[in-house]
């Protein structure tokens, strides 16, 4: 702990201490040991992956490099981010069963995503050199503009997501090891950077797979802890508590019923719009691996959904049975309320799983943002980085993106809150028109894709700004509007335009449309 204290002193002198932290959980020896082992193994696995990151395609995409188990665990862990493991239980605490539909929908959406776009995404890795999603968009629509717009969208959303995780991740690590937020940020992002610089997306995938295993182990701890705590009587107790009542245990929850539309459709169909999923499809070594990857990833995610569900209801049970009641607006602490009632070993196991959820998603987005700049944006604007130098510049950009995300996340103030809302829904609105519609519908055109991507970026940012400036707020999650609008735009514009659609479909794409 002396090293931590010294580090804290140095960081506080440069204004990076993060202020005082309310310690809800006393760090135990178990937790500190688990954290240290977890970090060391993550770095080791990540550096080992360097041997799989020799070419630009492997560094930015892990293209055709991994088997089904690695991809399944990596997909599930990258999709189940901190939002699922910390935000999810918080949603249950605030809204009852409403949000549980989200995670149930997402789990069953994995195989659905593979069913629909799996073979065509994997097939694209045979048709052309694929390292990033904009690579595929460029070939499908014969357009550098589509490539650039998609890269800009992915870059903004990735950096926004990373920045929004800085403080959330720091809060978790402060609870785990009792350090300041500044040190916590260094632990999370320093560890991730330590291997990402060398191994890029290949390192991200391999460490994500390890972190997925840690998350599954955490689920076992949660199941044991939940039934030990509640005796299986959580819902009757919550219904009987005057503070909560039947709304917290019925099938629709506290939020208005129409929110089920958003939570089921967007999170089921939306799985296939997540870059963490789409890129993994072409990271598989063989087309035969699609079978196991689709099935195992769905089952793994479904198992980890139990954290969302059980931790949320466990926290509600604690409050309903006379324990601590979280103040309004503090629902995100539900996971820590639940953990505060667990024994040291289970606490350590589950907290390591929470850290794994954050780091696995962060590493993916660092790599994606770096690829978007080094490979796609430069190429789209006519300054393609020579293939042999892409890995070198990718390493530099990985460092820059991480530092920028930390800086923006720490000192970005309100802008972080505003842009942090760009996530799941934003990705769906940008990728579904391009990959779902684009790889199935011959008549999808370049003009349709440009219009759809423009609508996706403009619509998402507009609704978020209007909401934050308190000018207008939709009575439902605004990303549903953005997704629907971008898909409808793609279809309507494509009906009246021709480039790269119908008879003008690129010849090299013909085999894809027969798969």
């Amino acid at each position, binding site marked *: 702990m002396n090293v931590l204290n010294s580090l804290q002193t140095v960081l506080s002198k440069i204004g990076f201490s993060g202020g005082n932290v309310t310690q809800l959980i006393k760090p135990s020896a178990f937790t500190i040991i688990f954290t240290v082992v977890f970090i060391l193994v993550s770095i080791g696995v990540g550096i080992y992956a360097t041997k799989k990151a020799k070419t630009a395609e492997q560094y930015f995409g892990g293209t055709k490099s991994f088997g089904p188990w690695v991809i399944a665990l990596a997909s599930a862990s990258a999709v189940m981010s901190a939002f699922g493991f910390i935000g999810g239980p918080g949603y249950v605490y605030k809204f009852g069963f409403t949000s549980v539909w989200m995670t149930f929908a997402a789990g069953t959406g994995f195989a659905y995503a593979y069913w629909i776009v799996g073979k065509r995404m994997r097939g694209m890795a045979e048709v052309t050199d694929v390292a990033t999603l904009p690579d595929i968009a460029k070939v499908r629509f014969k357009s550098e503009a589509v490539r650039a717009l998609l890269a800009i969208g992915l870059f903004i959303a990735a950096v926004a997501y990373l920045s929004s995780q800085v403080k959330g991740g720091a809060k978790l690590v402060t609870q785990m090891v009792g350090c300041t937020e500044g040190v916590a940020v260094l632990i999370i992002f320093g560890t991730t950077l330590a291997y990402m610089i060398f191994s890029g997306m290949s390192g991200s995938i391999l460490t994500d797979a390890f972190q997925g295993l840690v998350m599954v182990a955490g689920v076992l701890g949660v199941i044991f802890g939940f039934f030990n705590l509640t005796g299986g009587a959580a819902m009757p107790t919550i219904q009987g508590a005057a503070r909560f009542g039947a709304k917290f245990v019925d099938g629709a929850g506290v939020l208005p019923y*129409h929110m089920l539309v958003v939570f*089921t459709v967007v999170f089921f169909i939306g799985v296939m719009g997540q870059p963490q999923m789409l890129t993994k499809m072409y990271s598989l070594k063989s087309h035969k691996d699609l079978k196991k990857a689709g099935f195992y990833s769905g089952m793994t995610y479904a198992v980890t959904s139990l954290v969302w569900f059980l931790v949320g209801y466990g926290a509600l049970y604690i409050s309903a049975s006379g324990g601590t009641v979280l103040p309004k607006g503090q629902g995100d602490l539900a996971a820590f309320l639940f953990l505060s009632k667990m024994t040291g070993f289970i606490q350590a196991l589950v907290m390591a799983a929470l850290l794994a959820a954050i780091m696995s998603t962060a590493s993916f987005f660092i790599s994606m943002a770096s690829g978007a700049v080094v490979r796609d944006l430069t190429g789209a604007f006519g300054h393609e980085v020579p293939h042999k130098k892409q890995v070198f510049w990718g390493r530099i950009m990985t460092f820059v993106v991480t530092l920028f995300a930390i800086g923006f996340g720490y000192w970005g103030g309100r802008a972080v809150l505003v842009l942090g809302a760009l996530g799941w829904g934003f990705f769906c609105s940008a990728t579904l028109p391009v990959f779902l519609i684009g790889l199935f519908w011959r008549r999808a055109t370049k003009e349709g894709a440009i219009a759809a991507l423009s609508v996706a970026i403009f619509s998402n940012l507009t609704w978020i700004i209007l909401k934050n400036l308190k000018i207008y707020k939709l009575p439902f999650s605004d990303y549903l509007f953005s997704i629907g609008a971008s898909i409808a735009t793609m279809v309507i514009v494509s009906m009246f335009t021709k480039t790269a659609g119908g008879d003008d479909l690129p010849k090299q794409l013909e085999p894809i449309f027969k798969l």
Partner: protein
Amino acid sequence: MASTQSKAIDALVVIGAVCWVILIITCWIATPLSGFIGTITGSILMMTYFVMGTERKGKLNLKPVPFVYPILIQTIFWILSFIISYSMLGQPTNNFILGMHPGAFWPLALFWIGGLLTGTLSYFIFFDKYLPDSDWDDFMKEVEQNKKAA
């Protein structure tokens, strides 16, 4: 001239887009009934893309497998889940099933477990019908020919 098959995909793509627009409208109205209509529309949207995913060599596969199982059965599971959750909105109960409110238990059983037993499991069991090796071999041959021609 567009083939019959590409017309079917045209129709599915347009139906999908219309469903998205209906979803936006039902959510904007924001009443429990409009929400319920939205959930049924969402089920149809899910089914639409599911059917689109059966396309192989330019043909949709509407045989019992996969059309009845998994597609139709999963769609029915979805609709039943929404009907049950809608009909038990905010109602207290004494009949907990395995410790759960029936309005939550049945969606868990039908929407989640049912979804895993239909879409997810069927993908694993019937993968060889979805992507036979012969399809992949034909695909690779054509890709190689295109590369040589280029």
